[in-house]
């Protein structure tokens, strides 16, 4: 495999956040290094989102999004607009993603 031709970097990131409700959030993310576009993302943990299925919608929706605060926030707000989340919030999730991808 020629790594020079493959600009995709897969980072497997485990970040835990202890918030007031003590929930853990883990993110597995891969993105194109050159374009900074998310290729795939998995958000797992012992948190709660109602309705639950919105997590798959969120993960799919974030694919193709650039790793920039504004883009990530806008997409998350749009998808999670009618959802109730316990264990993390949009700001902390965006921060986690950006910090783990190089502190943008």
């Amino acid at each position, binding site marked *: 495999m020629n790594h020079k031709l493959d600009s995709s970097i897969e980072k497997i990131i485990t970040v835990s956040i202890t918030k007031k409700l003590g929930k853990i959030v883990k993110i597995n993310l891969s993105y194109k290094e050159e374009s900074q576009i998310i290729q795939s993302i*998995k958000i*797992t*943990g*012992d948190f*709660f989102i109602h*309705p*639950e299925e919105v*997590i798959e919608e969120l993960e799919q929706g974030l694919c193709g999004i650039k790793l920039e605060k504004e883009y990530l926030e806008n997409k998350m707000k749009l998808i999670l607009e009618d959802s109730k989340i*316990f*264990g993390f919030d949009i700001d902390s999730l965006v921060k986690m993603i950006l910090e783990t991808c190089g502190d943008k």
Partner: protein
Amino acid sequence: MAIDEYLLYNCNDPVLRIYGWSKPCISIGYFQSTDEVDFKKCKEQNVDVIRRITGGGAVFHDMEVTYSFVTKDFSQGIMESYKEISEIVIQALKELGLDAKFSPLNDVTVNEKKVCGNAQTRKNNTLLQHGTILLKVDVEKMFSLLRVPKEKISDKNILDVKNRVAGISKTFDQVSDALKNSTRDIFGCELVSHTLSDKELESCQKLADEKFSDEKWTFKR
């Protein structure tokens, strides 16, 4: 799990279900990765693994009373509804002489130790809350079945969990009776015993076979 989901979609009247497990089992939350579980150890120890339709953390179901409560009449606020429904558990434990308290978001504690964890989902304008009331806890066994980073399986961490989680040292029947009493008191109602019909059991079995036993569901995350 299949019966809980069946009830969620097929009940018009509120239902309290009290049950145990035919053999020890680990349930993982809807959002959790299967990486959390040591499947090899579970197989060796004949422990099943199942993914819940509710969020929250991994639970080792062994010496406990499990309950489900299904209702179409519930508070829209998540925290509020947890508090209201967990009152069934709190009053039941009080009847058994324990100083039980609600601990947001989804726990019940006695003397600052977690004795009951709960999780909810809302579908079909119906709320399902299920939870586990610990009778006894085997922290070492629980740690051996879950994939906790080695550095975290220290004596200190096991001690930490032991200090935070406790069983209530009552029998299944004592807790079961107390749960029925508290439900009667809180909702001012009579409870009508219901045995699932063959047709209902068939639907539950279909859900168990086609969803909960399917690796696609278990390993979906």
